[in-house]
């Protein structure tokens, strides 16, 4: 029993990331009808917002410390961080410690700008083009974005730790009456899950309760009709693109303490999140979220050693297997409408 709870919990945070990315993908697809292969890159850019802020906060100048020597035997140059110099080591240190959550503040405007620039500069011209063209141009964009990040940040993963306060882990087992250590769960993953839920709820609330959201939902259902009402749906869709970019970016920011970011991380998520979108049902927001969590949890179960012993390699292919089965048995996905994207 505890094993099952453990794997469900584990699936939740991976599922959160899938759900957030898939949510953005579906928003873009549903509103703009565009298949965005650069969405994984947006997730990656979000993560690098956190890296950048961390770099920025830890900017430092060198002070020679004659009492110590460096690896070549020369006097050691000690890095002194400006922020600690200005605000004192306590406050400065605390700000650096909290750089990942602080990055949210940076990521929102940055991702919004990137999203706007992408939509206005590129995607806009592809609304009427075949899906294959959309896939290809956004794929090219993803490569370009990745390479730019690699040029500035290198290829190795860059550690970006969570604030000190969240570094431990929580023992659910004790709470639920199991032995100690049977169900442990790091605090940050808990934070990530809650964060994802808040974002998802916010997006849904936004679509449900604002006029803007209602127009967009109507547009998703039937773009032409809304266009006839004289509503400038195009501008609203631009905003939706920016929102999708922000969601992906924030998912990336908060993910950095879980997996150290590198330039390639988006591609790893991209293929999977497309599978998630398809399993959830093209164009269905609740479907994308549900499928995200579902596949995250399934992936966790498939990685249990008992399961791997039973079916070798299942942990490598479970996502794809699920995708194939869903597509063959129920092509519209869990919650999708029929006939979307069939051509």
């Amino acid at each position: 029993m505890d094993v099952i709870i453990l794997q469900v919990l584990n699936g939740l945070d991976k599922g959160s990331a899938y759900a957030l990315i898939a949510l953005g993908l579906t928003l873009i697809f549903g509103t703009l009808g565009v298949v965005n292969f650069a969405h994984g890159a947006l997730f990656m850019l979000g993560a690098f917002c956190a890296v950048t802020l961390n770099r920025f906060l830890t900017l430092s100048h060198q002070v020679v410390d004659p009492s110590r020597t460096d690896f070549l035997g020369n006097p050691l140059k000690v890095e002194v961080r400006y922020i600690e110099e200005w605000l004192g080591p306590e406050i400065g240190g605390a700000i650096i410690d909290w750089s990942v959550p602080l990055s949210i503040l940076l990521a929102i405007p940055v991702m919004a700008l990137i999203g706007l620039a992408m939509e206005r500069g590129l995607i806009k011209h592809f609304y009427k083009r075949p899906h294959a063209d959309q896939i290809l141009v956004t794929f090219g964009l993803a490569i370009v974005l990745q390479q730019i990040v690699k040029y500035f940040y290198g290829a190795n993963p860059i550690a970006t730790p969570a604030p000190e306060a969240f570094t431990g882990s929580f023992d659910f087992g004790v709470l639920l009456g199991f032995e100690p250590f049977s169900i442990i769960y790091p605090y940050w993953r808990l934070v990530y899950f809650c964060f994802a839920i808040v974002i998802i709820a916010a997006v849904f609330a936004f679509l449900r309760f604002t006029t803007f959201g209602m127009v967009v939902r109507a547009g998703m259902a039937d773009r032409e009709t809304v266009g006839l009402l004289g509503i400038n749906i195009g501008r609203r869709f631009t905003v939706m693109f920016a929102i999708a970019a922000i969601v992906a970016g924030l998912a990336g920011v908060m993910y950095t303490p879980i997996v150290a970011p590198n330039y390639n991380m988006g591609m790893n998520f991209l293929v999977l999140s497309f599978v998630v979108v398809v399993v959830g049902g093209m164009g269905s927001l609740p479907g994308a979220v549900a499928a995200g969590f579902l596949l995250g949890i399934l992936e966790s179960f498939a990685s249990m050693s008992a399961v791997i012993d039973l079916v070798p390699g299942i942990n490598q292919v479970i996502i794809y297997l699920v995708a194939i089965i869903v597509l063959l048995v129920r092509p519209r996905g869990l919650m999708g409408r029929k006939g979307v994207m069939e051509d």
Partner: protein
Amino acid sequence: MLGLSRKDTTLLLIVLALVVLAPFLLNPFPEDSELARFNAGYPDLMQRFVIFGIFAMGFNILFGLTGYLSFGHAAFLGVGSYAGVWMMKLLTVNVVPAIIASVAVAGVFSLLIGYICLRRSGIYFSILTLAFAQMSFALAYSVLTPITAGETGLQLSLNDPRILGSSAVDGTIPATNFFGIAMRDGFEWAVGGWKFTFNFGYYLCAVIMLIAFYISIRIFRSPFGAMLRAVKSNQQRMNYTGINPKPYTLAAFVISGMYAGLAGGLMVAVDPLAGADRMFWTASGEVVLMTILGGAGTLVGPLLGAGVIKYFENIFSRLNEADLNQMFSGLPDGLQSAMVTVAQMFVGDGWLLTLGVMFMAVVIFLPGGIVEGGQRVAGWFRRKSGTEKSGKAAPAASAAE
């Protein structure tokens, strides 16, 4: 000739000439000139040009004609490669059985996968093929290591049985050959400052590529080809016209899978190692890029696309800072370092950036790929000369497929 129209015959002859003369055409710069680094006339790259040309040509039969975008075609290439290496391990290092096995195994595999995937269309089809290919890659890399040698790649060894040949010759693994002509051997001709290499392996691949190209022309011009175009255009109408589109599409899928298998077989014929990496989804993406870049649905487009991408991958990725400094050495100092800094983003490890930018540019500005670009230029010239002669615009360039 050969049952082709005059236009197609001309095209075939042009491709034939290009392929035969490739060792000269691809080595335009003398050996010790600065520009020699841009020469592409060495066996490995020439082989790659034609092998990936076959791969892209086959992919084009599916994607260019029927519009079905497979994102998992590299799986067939990989399966073909494994089959080929196993033939060379078990039977003989003569490449003929290996190539036949590659095509056959890839054909069966694509029939299986195609039968399942073609139950869906549009992006669902793409995702299905992607899922199958990724599964194949993941399993080949890990669980199937006993069959595929996983990470290290399946290769020949001194202990292979090779029942129709010998396990070892003089303590080394025998070279892959075509009835005694070793694939890695060839003929070198040094003339002036130039050195031209005529590699046997390349010419074997080239001959097979020409045959494949010929078959591809036949398919394009046949009623079958018309049916495939009709699938792309309007499946509904086909159905109500008394035609069952499924077997046509499946046939196209299997044919293109066999082309991929052939490419895989040739890859191991000239270089007997099959790595799982060639099944990774980026490899599938690459063949899509080749086809689109060259011009999907055109005959020569995929060949051109394959050539351009392989050229960038192999030549640009190998330029380094020192090369750039040499190249820009004529410029004033400040300008030189600025140029080198900018150029460095695009070469060496930045070659993918070049590819990405180039790719976006083509999709945005030239949806028909290089072939369309060529047509536009040709049309522009024709109009220009037409205006001079008769004062009237010449008719738009017909598809120079």
